[in-house]
């Protein structure tokens, strides 16, 4: 959708974004925030991101240091969060000095800078809900605290249907669905070089999570190797590969490379090297952003026919779909795709058009529309000191 800039006075210029998780650790929420901030900045907005930071040395100029995070168990894993009086002060300082028109808080109930910002700010607040959590965790957060935070948020965004359901059913509240975006240009601006010379199949995702479907690919591997003996398999993602390696035949094992956790740059490089990107997920995916990343990189996709993937690939127009969980169907589809360059070119061509629907450049219009619909002209985000004993204590230290 095109928004006409000229007809509207620029009521919103300064945007504050709060990220609850450490800026130094790669993750879904963190990269969402980074991409959103970069796109908004390209549109000419002033953006300041407040996030926990371990190493303030190499911080981009638009990131404000929210303090060093502490490792605590949260949401089923160990998260690096910032909290306490010091963090509260930093949040208050940031809100006071930022003079923001809108503050956009990610994961507002995460017990970190996000929740603190919900409490410390008042005015046009927007929140984005990323994860789907179970009810008990939300109640653990303290009903009163959660309720107060929720009541101050003027507009909620959910990145997936699952996140929206969590909000509607467990917290009580409504949200508009704005799916994740991909910075398409980031994935395109690379030269596709195939270093090894032999065709490579790429798998990305947690190895030890069964629903990511690595075992389906491994099951299909021997059939693929039979048809294309020089084929290479690259597996990138966190998790212990040993249980898989132990169960492989030796002729299959020597075709596999496990890269472990990879950085964004390495991921892009692998996508450009690969002839085929495989997404054998068996379910539980609400969107499949990694599919869009592969499509943006110009790598043909073979994915299981779960509904989220089928939607992204337009029912097979932009990539090959195989029967979910069926290893021999997967092997057939991969081999056929590697052998047919016309199919590959067709998928790459269609994908190039399709990915623009998921590009941050179009997604950001929806986010801006949310900002505009919660903002009344001339309004600013200010400090909220009412009813907050902790806040009053922290205020005294504001001029540190």
């Amino acid at each position, binding site marked *: *959708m095109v928004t*006409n800039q000229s*007809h509207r006075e620029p009521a919103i210029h300064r945007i504050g974004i709060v990220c609850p998780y450490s800026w130094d650790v790669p993750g879904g929420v963190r990269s969402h925030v980074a991409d959103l901030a970069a796109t908004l900045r390209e549109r000419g907005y002033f953006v300041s991101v407040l996030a926990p930071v371990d190493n303030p040395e190499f911080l981009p100029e638009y990131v404000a240091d929210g303090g060093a995070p502490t490792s605590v168990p949260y949401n089923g894993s160990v998260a690096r969060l910032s909290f306490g009086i010091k963090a509260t002060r930093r949040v208050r300082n940031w809100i006071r000095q930022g003079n923001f028109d809108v503050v956009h808080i990610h994961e507002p109930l995460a017990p970190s800078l996000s929740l603190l910002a919900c409490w410390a700010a*008042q005015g046009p607040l927007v929140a984005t809900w990323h994860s789907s959590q179970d009810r008990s965790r939300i109640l653990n957060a303290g009903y009163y605290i959660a309720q107060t935070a929720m009541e101050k948020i003027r507009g909620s965004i959910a990145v997936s249907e699952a996140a929206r359901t969590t909000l509607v059913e467990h917290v*009580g509240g*409504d949200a508009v669905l704005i799916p994740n975006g991909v910075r398409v240009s980031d994935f395109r601006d690379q030269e596709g070089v195939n270093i090894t010379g032999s065709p490579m199949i790429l798998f990305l995702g947690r190895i030890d999570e069964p629903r990511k479907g690595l075992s389906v690919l491994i099951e299909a591997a021997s059939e693929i190797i039979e048809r294309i003996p020089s084929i290479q398999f690259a597996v990138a993602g966190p998790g212990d590969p040993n249980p898989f390696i132990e169960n492989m035949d030796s002729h299959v094992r020597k075709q596999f490379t496990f890269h472990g956790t990879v950085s964004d740059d390495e991921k892009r490089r692998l996508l450009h090297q690969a002839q085929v990107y495989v997404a054998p997920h068996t379910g539980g995916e609400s969107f499949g952003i990694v599919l869009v990343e592969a499509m943006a990189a110009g790598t043909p996709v073979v994915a299981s026919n779960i509904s989220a993937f089928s939607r992204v690939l337009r029912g097979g127009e932009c990539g090959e779909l195989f029967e979910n969980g069926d290893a021999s169907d997967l092997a057939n589809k991969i081999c056929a795709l590697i052998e047919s360059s016309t199919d590959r070119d067709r998928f790459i061509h269609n994908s190039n058009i399709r990915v623009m629907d998921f590009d941050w450049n179009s997604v950001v219009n929806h986010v801006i*529309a949310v900002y505009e619909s919660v903002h009344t002209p001339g309004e600013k985000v200010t400090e909220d000191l009412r009813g907050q004993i902790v806040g009053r204590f922290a205020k005294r230290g504001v001029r540190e």
Partner: protein
Amino acid sequence: MTQWLFAGLLVTALVLLVLYLSMTAGRLDRLHRRIDLAESGLDAQLLRRSGIALELASNGLLDPATSMVLSEAAHSARISSDRSIPERDIAESELTDALSAALDPEECAYILTEQGGPETLAELSAAVQRVQLSRRFLNDAVRACTQLRKQRSVRWFHLAGRAPWPVFREINDHVSLPDL
């Protein structure tokens, strides 16, 4: 001794009660202000939408009959602003129907080729989206507020004062426009 203990407990309980009530009153106050802001926001977006509808009806992009239907609907939506909320919501829903009827895919394809057409349609599409967002956020605030006002403590201690009971806005705001 037991009397003092009893008195102390009583005072503590009273203090806690007063603290709880004042915090709840604070929450209510905040929600009412949020609703006020959201209502004025929605009104502004509705005005913007009907304004663009009027523009569309008067700049010669549409045939005379369609223009008439659209300007009639837009006009009655605009003059309904001093009526009761249900009446306004009906007028706005009728404007939605008129917009949907006027802008079928064929008509849109034609407008897009005309001078100034793409800009007007983009404006309209942005206004329609903002109406939907504003109404949704308003209704969310109304839901949160009614939920709190139904609580016993709020009713018994009249924490809401004389603030009117918030109302949901029931407007059909779905105009199907082509992707631009």
